[in-house]
């Protein structure tokens, strides 16, 4: 019964934003960082600061797509005993009004069992994004994710050829996550100059909302991305701030929100 509701929540959120001419703020947190309790406070704080969708990272021992900040947060979360079901428990207890996307590597997701997606939906998760499961990599597991109760969010990279962009979009739902640059997650000083062209190419290949992430950390960068895309993902900068205090992360989110909202419809 929750099948349609979970996966469609994200689409509904973007439709609502589009109707009011707004862009989405999509912060990322590593579940269990800096501690399980602080994650709870962080999730509520981010919602209050104006997040439209929140990505919740499932910590993994070997996060090969992540830079030093998210690596360290994952290690810290694992050391604090965070597990897949611990992540779901945190989401469930947070009782947020905004959609939640699990951000995970394949191995901990597979280890969580065949019913992991159903359990996630029941806990209040609406979408899932698997960093190391590109389109065409594993038909069996991609079907499991595609047929499950969660929106299956796929990634597009600056290196992705145009024809493959279309293929990726066909196999995903919720939104398309555009990796802004070559490399791993992290805080960067500038946006890549070819980003507008990449977003334009992707627009031609998909009807889904486009969210851009990797390296977006400051309000002016968020504003520049919001000029191009439907949503702005901010990961490492939020995680770094959360490492200082929940309050710093929430303050950062509020300033990102304000910057994004200066973009005209």
């Amino acid at each position, binding site marked *: 019964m929750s099948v349609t509701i979970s996966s469609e929540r994200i689409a509904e959120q973007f439709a609502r934003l589009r109707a009011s001419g707004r862009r989405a703020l999509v912060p990322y947190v590593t579940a269990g960082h800096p501690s399980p309790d602080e994650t709870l406070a962080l999730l509520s704080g981010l919602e209050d600061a104006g997040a439209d969708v929140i990505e919740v990272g499932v910590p993994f021992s070997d996060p090969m797509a992540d830079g030093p900040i998210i690596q360290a947060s994952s290690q810290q979360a694992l050391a604090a005993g965070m597990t897949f079901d611990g992540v779901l428990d945190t989401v469930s207890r947070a009782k947020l009004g905004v959609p939640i996307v699990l951000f995970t590597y394949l191995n901990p997701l597979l280890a969580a069992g065949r019913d992991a997606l159903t359990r996630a939906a029941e806990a209040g998760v609406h979408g899932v994004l698997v960093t190391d499961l590109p389109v065409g990599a594993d*038909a069996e597991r991609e079907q499991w994710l595609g047929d499950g109760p969660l929106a299956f969010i796929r990634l597009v990279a600056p290196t992705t050829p145009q024809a493959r962009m279309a293929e990726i979009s066909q196999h995903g739902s919720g939104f398309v996550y555009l990796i802004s640059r070559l490399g791993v997650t992290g805080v960067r000083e500038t946006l890549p100059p070819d980003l507008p062209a990449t977003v334009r190419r992707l627009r031609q290949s998909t009807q889904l909302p486009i969210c851009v992430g990797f390296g977006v950390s400051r309000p002016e960068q968020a504003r520049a991305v919001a000029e191009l895309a439907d949503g702005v993902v901010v990961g490492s900068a939020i995680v770094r701030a959360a490492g200082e205090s929940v309050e710093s992360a929430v303050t950062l989110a509020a300033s990102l929100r304000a910057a994004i909202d200066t973009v005209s419809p």
Partner: protein
Amino acid sequence: MPAHDLTIPPATTGRFGVFGGRYVPETLIPALDELERAYDTARADPTFEADVEHLLSTYVGRPSPLSDAPRLSEHVGTRVWLKREDLNHTGAHKINNTVGQVLLARRMGKKRIIAETGAGQHGVATATVCARFGLECVVYMGEEDMRRQALNVWRMRLLSATVVPVTSGTRTLKDATSEAIRDWVASVVDSHYVIGSVVGPAPYPRMVRDFQSIIGREAREQMLAQAGALPTTVIACVGGGSNAIGVFHAFIDDPAVQLVGVEAAGEGLDTEHHAASLSRGTPGVLHGTLSYLLQDAAGQVHPAHSISAGLDYPGVGPEHAYLKDIGRATYVAVTDHDALEGFKLLSRLEGIVPALESAHAVSWLAAQRGRWRADDSVLVCVSGRGDKDVAQVSEMGILAP
């Protein structure tokens, strides 16, 4: 909790049975496509094959000899033959692969080479071939391994490679591999990642196997010429598994030849400190490939342990996982303690100081007296020489010289 059935074969290529695949960030998919096309084109080009063979014979020193081992034979009670990869330039089998991959990178117009290394043998082999062709070379190495293998760090720097210490996670091969992949995701346009073993996403396991299969092709001919028969058993150590797949491959279609891979049992298979992914692991995904993996029930990768930095990896090549599951190869494990005995034994009986990795294979063989008839022939791959390990073993003070 119902588990995923990882035995259902996914409908994609780049697989060995269910194992292998391409579980990588999207950014790398076009690069892996490009690499696969370039590799398949190169393989079909006689010029490429001639270039590889030229370097292997005039620079690496191939073919490597097949030595008879009279005193070890007497000790084991059967005829033992040693495939001498320790006599290659740079002291191990690793250079067979780096020659092939660096020549391929040149064809692809890549100017910068990335590598990971555990014991340092693959890093040295990569730095060597890069020096030969004037290519920039960056080697990622765990801080812990840099300490254990200081001499190889010095050699790589002498060869003008940049050695980057990896301080994340367990500070060993696993984390060095993650760090090399992170570099490659950022530098994929102008860099080629030379993986050192038959691991990683497709096409690496197949490509590295092909470059290493020279070991078995030579050994098979040499056995027929020198021993007059194929071996009863072929034995090789397995970390990622490149020397093992290299020596096994030419014998896979000889059903009478038994293939034995020897993993690192570290402090014992019943402890948490070993590197025996095939003996004790379960299927999972790490570094782009589905294979046996040391992991906990939550899918978090368990740190590996071995006295030998080159075997200290929690995963294993997907083709070994396949050979295990179809029963074509058998995998056993030898402890740190017994590997040291193998190290000493080959030194004393044959005047050959093996790498600690290869010493695992020697040790297993030495414990099998009575397994074979006196006129059987057993082939052991001596994957590398032990010079790099002498300082580490002498510092332990547990092996009287």
